[in-house]
């Protein structure tokens, strides 16, 4: 197929089980260069599992996963071209931002001085250069998130896998990060990110994947999704995932607050 030759990431019939629990039930996906893909779905839908498989963190899946045209099984060199922001915000917070970022840069094969300079400049742009030499444990959630974002970009990767990249960021930082994403995509980077904030996904993705219960429910641009059903992405999301109880849940919730009776 012609599509395949240009494809940066290709997943076919990906399945994953944890014990008896089938988390992914056959994911199929082709991603081309420069796409910004918003990956949305309810908690437990399989979003993070997919990303972890793509990064080689989870083994024991079935199906085929190719990145840059090659299967990722037992490969590590493809990781040099990938930037990752983990959902769990795992970070060595006993280290200073400087120590952490230079360490990560060196794992990607960069020289210490080069990363140091780069990291410092990036921190400056995101407005946190004054804490460059402080321990990450003293950072706020938003500052930590910025460090994680920078750590995923130090080596100028071709694909970004960002799991909940905006969590903890303040409104201004969200705007900056959104702009960074579109600029990266214009320069040919492929971006694959998950988020719960529908407005953001709606605005910056040129392709939206809706995953629920281990399957892709919808795949297309926001306009294409809107052709299928009405309203904002949030409403489409609710319709497609079959979640339409929010109003009754909310009124039950407030009823309990006011009367104290359980229903």
């Amino acid at each position: 197929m012609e599509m395949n030759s240009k494809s940066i990431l290709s997943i076919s019939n990906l399945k994953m089980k944890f014990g008896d629990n089938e988390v992914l039930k056959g994911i199929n996906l082709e991603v081309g260069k420069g796409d910004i893909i918003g990956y949305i779905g309810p908690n437990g839908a399989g979003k993070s599992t997919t990303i972890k498989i793509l990064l080689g963190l989870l083994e024991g899946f079935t199906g085929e996963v190719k990145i840059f045209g090659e299967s990722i099984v037992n490969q590590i060199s493809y990781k040099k071209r990938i930037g990752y922001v983990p959902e769990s915000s795992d970070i060595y917070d006993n280290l200073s931002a400087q120590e952490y970022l230079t360490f990560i840069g060196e794992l990607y094969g960069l020289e210490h001085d080069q990363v140091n300079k780069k990291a410092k400049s990036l921190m400056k742009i995101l407005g946190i250069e004054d804490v460059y030499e402080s321990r990450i444990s003293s950072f706020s959630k938003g500052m930590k998130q910025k460090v994680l974002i920078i750590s995923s970009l130090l080596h100028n990767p071709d694909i970004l896998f960002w799991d909940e990249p905006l969590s903890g960021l303040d409104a201004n930082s969200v705007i900056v990060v959104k702009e960074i994403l579109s600029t990266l995509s214009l320069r040919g980077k492929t971006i694959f990110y998950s988020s719960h904030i529908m407005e953001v996904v709606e605005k910056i993705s040129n392709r939206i994947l809706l995953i629920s219960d281990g399957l892709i429910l919808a795949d297309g641009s926001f306009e294409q999704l809107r052709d299928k059903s009405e309203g904002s992405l949030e409403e489409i999301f609710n319709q497609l995932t079959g979640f339409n109880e929010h109003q009754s849940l909310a009124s039950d919730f407030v009823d309990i607050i006011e009367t104290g009776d359980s229903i």
Partner: protein
Amino acid sequence: MKDFMILRLLDKFQKIFLAIEVDYPIMRRILQVKLTMDTRRVSTFMSQSNTKKENNEKNYFISSLWLYILIGLFLIPLLFISEDYIFAMSTIFGIFMFMIMTSLISDFSSVLLDVKDKNIMMTRPVNSRTMNTAKAIHIFLYLFYLSISLAGGVLITSLIRFGVLFFLLFLVEIVLMNFLIITLTAMLYTIILKYFDGEKLKDVINYVQIGLSLVITVGFQLVARLFNFVDLSIVFVPRWWQFLIPPVWFGGPFQLLLRGDLNISYIIFSLLTLMIPILAIITYIRLMPSFEKNLLKLNENSEKKTKPKKNPNIISRIVCTSREELIFYRFASSMLKKEREFKLKVYPSLGFAFIFPYIFLMNQLQMQSIQELPSGNGFLNLYFSAIIIPSILIMIKYSGNYRGAWIYKALPIDNVKPIFTGTIKAFVIHLVLPVLSINSIIFILIFGVRIIPHLLAIYLNFVLLTLITFFMLDKNLPFSMSFNDINKESGKTIFLMIVGGIMALVHYLSTLIPFGLLVYIIILFIINIITWKKTFNLSWEQIQWN
């Protein structure tokens, strides 16, 4: 980041690592980061002395090693007391194994159980062999420092007293012992993680830390006395159960190889010493992947089916007089029982409170025969538990989660009194009374039921001392300050210990007068009631905020 000496030493072996397909520069970098982070961790002993300065870049672990060296020195006499190697060496290995394993669990668990490693490093172009080798070297270094500190003194003494062969055998066995320790520790974690969740494991680690602090401090008190009791002419008689205790195996080879004692037990011990640790470490390496898989459970908190306790409220309803007091009683009870950092600071002291009376009782035994003891005044040693009360009560205003104290300000609490009465009641009921009650039962067994009236006076004094302590200390809200800001108020604590001593003295004097004890109890009872009334008459203005 510091370039550690040990890394420069490793550089000399670069070729070996490259030969086994380890990416040496990356591995070196990982180790450098790990060692740097070690310098910023606080070890169990150091966390007790708690003066944590942010920029103090020395390795807390290294600086806590003197303690292990000291413990090791205490073991040297064992090499001189017995003609049989088996007794001395089994004891030494028993203590080594205990010390190293508990230290490994309490101080190094954060390294062994790190789930971040995988997420941070394996998502980068790092091969798993490089990462695992770095981890193995890290563990090796830790065990090496620990073993050398602990065994150094004994090793050198053994070289002088028993010669080179003994020394070498000893050295080899220490290595084998470490294999066994690593595997046993990993097994322990695996079993706990398999059947429970990460929270349970953290609890277990917390209790090991508490136990270790306790054993070390009490151990120093006991070791000196121990030698008075040990019968030097012990003859070792092999028994079946000894085959189940690894330290006993380690004594076997000395007896077999150096004494030429061909007793079948020693032969079996020697075989076990050699084979079990080697088999263990091989199994461990084989099973490492499944161990790692279990680790993923670490951050899970399985939706707990906390069994609703039967009649949880009976005691609280009896002791609490108002609704507000009940609320804070329950809150304080949960904090005392569940907060790990608080427990780590307080429970070891509680352990001393439990053990102190017996240490002094043993002292008394050196002057008195065991037959005379029950008829004497030895039960007054219970007061030695009391001297711990001030140093524990002082901790009640600290918490690892001190930031949660905003609730005091944000919630509409008009009266500050129930906060303190509820907390002090929880303190007495959950911390003071259990220790005192267990000791009371043991003392009744030793001294007979005749001491029950005395115990009544002791209970009243303990409560009174708690109240006086509370009265004297700065009034901060419970659980509202960081452990980093600890102020021991040492002057007051010492004064309060003296008060405890005076209580004991008056108690003793009262026994010399007819009906003295009865009068003492009545007076104490009245003072207690008055103090309860007076002490807690506090208003918000008297509270110190930090």
